[in-house]
């Protein structure tokens, strides 16, 4: 390899590989992507490392305890991995799922029986979602028991609580999408609870003060109607696929930024 590089060509006439290599590397575009040139000296190697995006986002130093994988299994990392997995499988499911009253349940069934690899995709999404709620709670338990929520990490704990809420909301909105009996009635029950919100829920205490009725209260805004129907399905779908993942991504970025700034509190 190093013999074919322009720097080591010397006076020898380059062969076919050397000519192609020169064609590929000795131009403006290549030098735009790989800025430091071939890393054949200590200085260039350091320059490669220093200008790498991965090196940029990783901390300059990490304590030994921060690298030790403990019996808590880097649960936050597993949660993040599951988030990425759910994003990937979720996007693939979107290719075959239509959030419409007459299609939704059948599309879910088609994913199980007719779509190539659809069953494993759906099951990865479903079990991954269950697992993510579980790992978030385990991660929070670890943070709590090791006292990692204390100063200076108290703000990141609050961000983590918001992420827990987003995780549960993602779980809840995803529950309706198969449009089966379980999800339909679970979301009926869940959104009827919102109807009991004080002041802004039509069944809640003090609802008469603001004139909350079935067709203008908070539950109505959630499900876009007075009962679970087509509006509720499309709302759950949009929040599940676009709104909540975007909010979650922003919060996760900030969560990691704070981890980077505050450092690891101990073994992961």
């Amino acid at each position, binding site marked *: 390899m190093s013999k074919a590089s322009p720097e080591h060509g010397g006076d020898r006439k380059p062969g076919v590989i050397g000519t192609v290599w020169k064609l590929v590397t000795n131009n403006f575009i290549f030098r735009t992507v790989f800025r430091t040139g071939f890393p054949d000296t200590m200085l260039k190697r350091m320059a490669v490392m220093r200008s790498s995006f991965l090196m940029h986002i990783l901390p300059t130093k990490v304590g030994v305890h921060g690298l030790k994988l403990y019996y808590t299994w880097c649960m936050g990392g597993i949660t993040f991995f599951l988030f990425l997995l759910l994003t990937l499988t979720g996007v693939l499911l979107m290719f075959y799922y239509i959030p419409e009253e007459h299609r939704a349940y059948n599309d879910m069934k088609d994913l199980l029986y007719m779509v190539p690899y659809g069953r494993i995709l759906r099951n990865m999404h479903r079990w991954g979602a269950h697992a993510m709620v579980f790992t978030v709670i385990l991660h929070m338990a670890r943070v709590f028991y090791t006292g990692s929520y204390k100063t200076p990490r108290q703000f990141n704990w609050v961000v983590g609580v918001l992420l827990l809420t987003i995780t549960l909301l993602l779980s809840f909105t995803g529950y309706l999408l198969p449009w089966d009996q379980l999800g339909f*009635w679970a979301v*009926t*029950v869940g959104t*009827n*609870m919102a109807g009991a919100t004080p002041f802004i829920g*039509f*069944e809640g205490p003090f609802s008469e003060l603001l004139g909350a*009725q*079935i*067709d*203008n209260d908070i539950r*109505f*805004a*959630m499900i*876009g*109607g*007075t*009962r679970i*129907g*087509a*509006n509720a399905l499309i709302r759950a779908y949009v929040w599940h696929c676009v709104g909540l993942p975007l909010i979650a991504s922003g919060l996760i970025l900030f969560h990691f930024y704070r981890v980077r700034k505050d450092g690891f509190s101990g073994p992961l």
Partner: protein
Amino acid sequence: MDDFPYGSAGGDPSRRKFFLVSGWSSLGMLAAGSGAGFAKFFYPGVLYEPQTTFNAGKPGDYVAPTDPKSVVVDERFKKTQRVWIVRSFEGIYAMVAVCTHLGCTPNWFPGEQRFKCPCHGSNYNVEGEVVAGPAPLPLFRAKINITPDGSMIITTGLLGIRRAELQYIKHVAITSWTDQEKKEIKKKPFFISLKA
């Protein structure tokens, strides 16, 4: 204006403060207006939901019980309208098939003469009173209006079952009908007297 933190160089401090305050309050009002518009966006102006009024045919279409103590519950409108037409020994009434706990659809068990909700186990007797489970109120009763040709027009509510008028008589969450309500649900429009 001595406490003004941006100094006085390059202009009159009071003028600068005026622009700061007016600028930020304009932005604040814009944000508040956008937030209100965003919230308003989630309230649909038109709904494509099933009608809450339907024609349930004539009272004679429904089978009367032979035993004065039991009722015959007709489930032909349960799936489309979420209403049971109940024929008792004395007459006919319409019950809304929505559990008052959290809105699931109970099932009718003729052998036990009870409605049972599959979600959290609320049980109702033939009058809709709660006999077991977490439900806070009796089942709602739908209004029945008789047309000149004798058909029953059933109204489950203005925009859904929760506006059935009878619930406004009750102000406390109790699981059985009060004496006043018992009189109310035994006359029009909640009850059509018929011979057995």
